[in-house]
């Protein structure tokens, strides 16, 4: 039995419990924006709800899930106990304390600032300090992942670090870089402003620091899904990973190109020059490299699995995949959604086209599809895959797992397609109500209702997910869980040795530093050299 069993389960339950509350808020938000009259609807309630929903989904679900999953990978992929379990529990409780502080600030109406940190609007300092605690907890997790890998390497000199762990540490290293921006913004600008120690704030600088974090954070959320694609799905489908090197390269490229690109969130901002926006836009396009590497490698791995099962034909093999297996099904559905979400992303990251969709519903629709869709469906699949090893019982009716995944993918498409369309029509994001009696926008109403129906399907799926994870009722005999340890996908040609650069992060950290200097050096320095105008701090509840 795993020594991290309780640790992982506790993290996962915190993540999923938060998720199930937040999804109810999400549905209510869509209801509020629709022509149907939603109960409790006031502007203040709406923005409280969006704050709670965004913080829960973006910070709590993700961080706790990723930490729990990392502990699981560290023990099962390295096949040795996790070092520093006390630290892990300390980090957990620190995170919980932070979440409680933030939630308290939100429910007492003191933090209707949404989940992004854009001063001069500031909420209660306890909201920000709570979220800082969550970040510090995640830093402890990063440290533990790095230490676990270093200890393993010392004990297994010259051997390739198992891909799942290599990828987890890539994510930890990336997260440390990622959080520098937001941490600086919170500590030097937002928290002093929230306490009232400063009266003005340079919003250009804070937006720039937040953009440092804003793109890489979505890759922090995404990487667990990619870990599942590379190291779990091929085995569950009955095959092998097509190439271990491709996997390493992909995760390294994510580390490199998630960071120096955040300015694509500031295309419409005045505080940066066109040259830097162009460079970061161009670097953003390089993210397509690891994405296509993945599409290719995973499709090839799946084809391998299908042909082993007797599949034939150019596309005929697809039928031969074990679609009854939840991980295989989730991978297929995730790729399907990635196709649409990625297409939308290309529009967002194009310097010119961005003007068309900036701050419209298109943006919210896009990240729901790619993050709520592709990423979260893989969180479900990961949970299903590791649950038996954590709980000691297996799922009695796998059909319910598949139904849940299907509902999620269908609901997500139904919700996000009209949502995208409305964005193109010019519907604003972050707006509580619309006056549908205005003929200019009356035509939007029905589409929002379709999105709402999609949201209800998602709600049903989320409920089923929780039911699936609950232990089976005592009266029914529990089917005992697996006795063997968790196995990750083997590569078609398992590497005996990999070049040291692909077995660690020294070189890549140097390159990240170089890229960040080129991409963000002057853009940040300029605020300290010129006499930039400052905005007056606006405190909520103050």
């Amino acid at each position, binding site marked *: 039995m795993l020594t991290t069993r309780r640790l992982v389960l506790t993290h996962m339950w915190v993540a999923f419990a938060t998720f199930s509350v937040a999804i109810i808020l999400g549905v209510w938000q869509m209801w509020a924006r629709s022509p149907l009259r939603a109960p409790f609807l006031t502007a*203040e309630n709406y923005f409280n709800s969006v704050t709670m929903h965004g913080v829960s989904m973006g910070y709590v679900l993700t961080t706790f899930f990723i930490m729990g999953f990392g502990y699981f990978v560290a023990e099962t992929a390295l096949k040795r106990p996790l070092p520093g379990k006390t630290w892990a529990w300390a980090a957990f409780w620190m995170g919980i304390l932070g979440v409680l502080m933030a939630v308290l600030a939100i429910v007492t109406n003191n933090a209707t600032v949404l989940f992004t940190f854009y001063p001069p609007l500031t909420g209660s300092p306890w909201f920000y300090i709570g979220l800082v605690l969550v970040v510090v907890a995640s830093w402890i997790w990063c440290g533990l992942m790095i230490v676990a890998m270093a200890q393993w390497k010392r004990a297994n000199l010259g051997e390739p670090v198992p891909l799942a762990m290599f990828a987890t540490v890539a994510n930890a290293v990336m997260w440390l870089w990622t959080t520098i921006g937001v941490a600086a913004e919170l500590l030097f600008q937002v928290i002093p402003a929230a306490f009232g120690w400063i009266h003005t704030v340079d919003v250009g600088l804070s937006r720039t620091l937040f953009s440092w974090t804003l793109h890489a954070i979505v890759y922090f959320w995404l990487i667990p899904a990619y870990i599942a694609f590379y190291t779990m799905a091929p085995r569950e489908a009955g095959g092998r990973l097509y190439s271990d090197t491709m996997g390493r390269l992909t995760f390294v490229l994510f580390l490199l190109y998630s960071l120096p690109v955040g300015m694509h969130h500031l295309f419409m901002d005045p505080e940066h020059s066109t*040259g830097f926006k162009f460079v970061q836009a161009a670097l953003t396009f390089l993210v397509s490299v690891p994405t296509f590497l993945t599409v290719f490698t995973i499709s090839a791995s799946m084809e391998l699995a299908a042909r082993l099962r007797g599949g034939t034909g150019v596309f005929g093999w697809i039928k031969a995949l074990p679609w009854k297996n939840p991980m295989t099904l989730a991978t297929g559905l995730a790729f399907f959604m990635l196709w649409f979400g990625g297409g939308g992303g290309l529009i967002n990251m194009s310097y010119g086209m961005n003007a068309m969709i900036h701050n419209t519903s298109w943006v919210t629709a896009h990240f729901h599809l790619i993050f709520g869709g592709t990423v979260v469906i893989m969180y479900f699949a990961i949970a299903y895959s590791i649950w038996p090893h954590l709980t000691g019982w297996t799922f009695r009716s796998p059909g319910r797992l598949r139904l849940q995944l299907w509902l999620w993918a269908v609901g997500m498409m139904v919700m996000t397609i009209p949502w995208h369309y409305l964005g193109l029509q010019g519907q604003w994001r972050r707006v509580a109500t619309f006056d549908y009696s205005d003929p200019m926008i009356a035509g939007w109403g029905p589409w929002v209702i379709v999105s709402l129906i999609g949201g209800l399907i998602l709600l049903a799926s989320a409920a089923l997910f929780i039911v699936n994870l609950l232990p089976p009722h005592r009266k029914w005999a529990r089917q005992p869980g697996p006795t063997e340890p968790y196995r990750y996908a083997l590569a078609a040609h398992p590497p005996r040795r990999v070049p040291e650069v692909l077995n660690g992060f020294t070189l890549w950290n140097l390159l990240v530093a170089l890229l960040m200097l080129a991409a963000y050096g002057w853009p940040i320095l300029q605020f300290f050299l010129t006499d930039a105008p400052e905005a007056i701090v606006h405190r909520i509840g103050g």
Partner: protein
Amino acid sequence: MASPDPHNTPETEAERRAGRLWARTAVMVVVGFVAVFGVLGFVIIPVAQGAQAGIDPWSAICRAVGVSPGSPAMRQPVSDTPAQPVSNVAWTPAILNTLSGADRATGQRLAQEVCSACHGESGVSPSPNFPHLAGQSAAAIYKQLHDYRSGARFNEQMTPVAEALSEQELAAIAAYYAEASDDLRLGTRNPLPDERLQRLVSEGDPSRGIPACNACHARGAGGPIETPMINGQHAAYLEAQLTAYANGGRRNDIYQRMRTISAALTEQERRELAAYYQGTR
């Protein structure tokens, strides 16, 4: 995944060479991309676009780097329409510091000598012709006094009073009135229990472009800093102000916020809202 082969076998020369090749290629690719994108973004595109807009290459490059203002693609038009501020108050850090460091004792003395005759003992005015000041926000009082002084807002009685005061004195009085005891202050009364008005106040009426009053007029709502507290104010005074905003008699509200809102309300709504906010104990 861990391969069973023997630990600690030393790296062969070929492996070492492969590793070096990887590292060198990686550095070259990364540096190469940055260089290509940099040349494109800082030189080629701006110079080409600048030429079309009649901007010399050097200025175009400076603009692309961000050391001189403007985008290389176009000359930024300069507006020569003179701005006509409705109010001369600009919320600068200096003013905020003056307000937060104001001398309350001076404020109290001046208030008792000059203001109490009309605005009542400690700012609680007995007559509906004079607004309450106790517990009003310091920024609101400061802005209104400043506006009377500059002529942005006019009232036969208030204008001469404000004109006689210095900037420091305005701040001192504002700070004094802002700190009133709880039983006297504005903002502690219960609004009238009226569901329809309650909805207008907390949700507004999107079909007429009326935002929720409480999005600004509630303590800690996060609206403009100068938003006055109106809960507990005399109804007659509130109604007079709303009417003045609606017919242009009062025009010192920045961005015409209140003029726009009030003009969208009906006369009856203005009267009802005034009574609503005066409220009951």
